[in-house]
């Protein structure tokens, strides 16, 4: 699996209003990998994703995408590079129709020309959305909104998708569905950065994983290694 790294985060520091959210985080994502980042609430997972997406400006550190430092680039420029995101809380456009949500996702220059084809692909993957394409996204259930968020990310034909807790607030059945979707996207050769609290499900599908605690990486290793790691178990269960 040794490929060139597409994304390298080096010594990233992020803080809000004077208090640190990320403390010298470094990680590497290789092409077509599925990387899990696990950690409790407040560990800095969301800050990590938002810094990569350019929504949060880091205090210091480098974020290198295909050899180019993208710190300081605007979110829309970063999206054009092929980095998409399925955010925590989904952040769909609640008053816009499902289709508008998807179309907006597919309007980046990199994918604008193939918008209709991509739309079809999303509808094939999520037939539920096809049924509700005219409905405003705010009226959908949590799971359906999650589908919109994923579909919206797919519309830009990204090279990498960052998922921020896709299972949050979903029923076990839906959670399973979500992880299946993530796995399918990965099988389609999309690089995945998956941030989760659902340790077992995410680590079991991930190639490698990082454990984030208090804004720092405390553990890293392959999915299976981490899954059987005593520290991980203790961290989450206190066993």
């Amino acid at each position: 699996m040794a490929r060139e790294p597409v994304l390298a985060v080096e010594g990233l520091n992020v803080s809000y209003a004077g208090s640190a959210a990320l403390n010298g985080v470094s990680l590497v994502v290789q092409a077509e990998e599925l990387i899990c980042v696990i950690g409790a609430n407040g560990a800095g997972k969301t800050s990590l994703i938002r810094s990569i997406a350019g929504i949060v400006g880091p205090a210091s550190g480098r974020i290198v995408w295909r050899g180019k430092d993208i710190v300081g680039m605007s979110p829309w420029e970063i999206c054009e590079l092929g980095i998409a995101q399925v955010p925590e809380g989904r952040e769909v456009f609640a008053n816009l129709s499902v289709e508008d949500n998807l179309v907006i996702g597919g309007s980046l220059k990199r994918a604008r020309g193939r918008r209709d084809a991509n739309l079809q692909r999303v509808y094939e993957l999520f037939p539920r959305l096809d049924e509700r394409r005219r409905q405003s996204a705010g009226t959908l259930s949590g799971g359906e909104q999650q589908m919109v968020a994923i579909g919206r990310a797919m519309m830009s034909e990204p090279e990498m998708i960052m998922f921020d807790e896709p299972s949050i607030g979903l029923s076990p059945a839906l959670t399973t569905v979500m992880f299946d979707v993530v796995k399918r996207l990965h099988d389609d050769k999309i690089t995945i950065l998956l941030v989760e609290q659902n340790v077992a499900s995410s680590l079991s599908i991930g190639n490698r994983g990082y454990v984030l605690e208090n804004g720092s990486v405390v553990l890293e290793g392959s999915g299976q290694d981490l899954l059987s790691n005593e520290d991980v178990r203790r961290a989450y269960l206190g066993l």
Partner: protein
Amino acid sequence: MVLFAALALLGAVFNSYLISLLTIVFLFAFIGQSWSLMLGLGGQLSIGHALFVGIGAYSVAVLDIKYGLSPWLGLLVGSAIAGAVGAALAWLSFRFEVRGIYFGLLTIAAAEFARVMFSGWEFVGGMQGLFFPAQSGESSLLMLRGGARFYYFVALGAVAIGVGVTALIRKSFLGYVWRAMRDDEDASRALGVRTFLHKVLVVSISGAWAAVGGGLLALVQGSIFPDSIMGMGISIDVLIGPIVGGLGTAFGPLIGALIIIPLDHLMSAFSDSIGIPGLNNVAYGIVLIAVVWFLPDGVWPALIGRFRSQKRLPSIRSQIVQTQEVRQ
């Protein structure tokens, strides 16, 4: 204290131009303090403070001119009415969850409504206004009558009391509770702050206070008209001082008024002397934009080097947005 002592001493030697200019500065600073109390401490935005100013002015004018009663009584009655009107307005608004900018817009509507009503109300002179008799020259504290210097000291006294009261309120439990309420209403409720009560209270106190300023302004002007005393112009003039000077601080409104009103007059005199009226508006507009651009917290906090954010506690989302803004 030193500032006030100096101003009081200088009051004896200033020429009449500075006296009458500073009288207006002090009065607007005094009214500005009430506005600043409401937003800077209580977190409630009023864009229609002319309502309270007008109520105060009319109370004094009607009682004095029509019934020959002492302006002191007018000030008392005016502030009672304005306080009640403020409380009623606040009660209605907050009961129905009108808040933030919507409350601000409501205050405009209330002020404009009152203005139109007063302009059609014959008893208070309608649009023809009310006129005080000419000053006889004899100063009388009882009847609040006197020359320019007399009003200078009255206005200076008012603004000094205003600074004192603001400082006292800031230090009392009200100050703590109001600032907490302004910063985060829900969080302060969780700490047992009866926010509804306090919001009504702060609007009411601010209204009563502004009415006193309005009453004094009426006496100094010598005549009042609904347009000039209750119009949008007053509401705007009132709030510029505190924002320029420093919102919620004891000295901010005074400093702001001391800067902005004489500056306005300077620019006006200049544009008049070169014969291009309107240039003063342009300059004043640019000054206002520059102040909010470069001194986001006002002059006073910048002067004393205590930068404190006057913003409400931003949610996580707006924090992100702000980080973003900084970067761009």
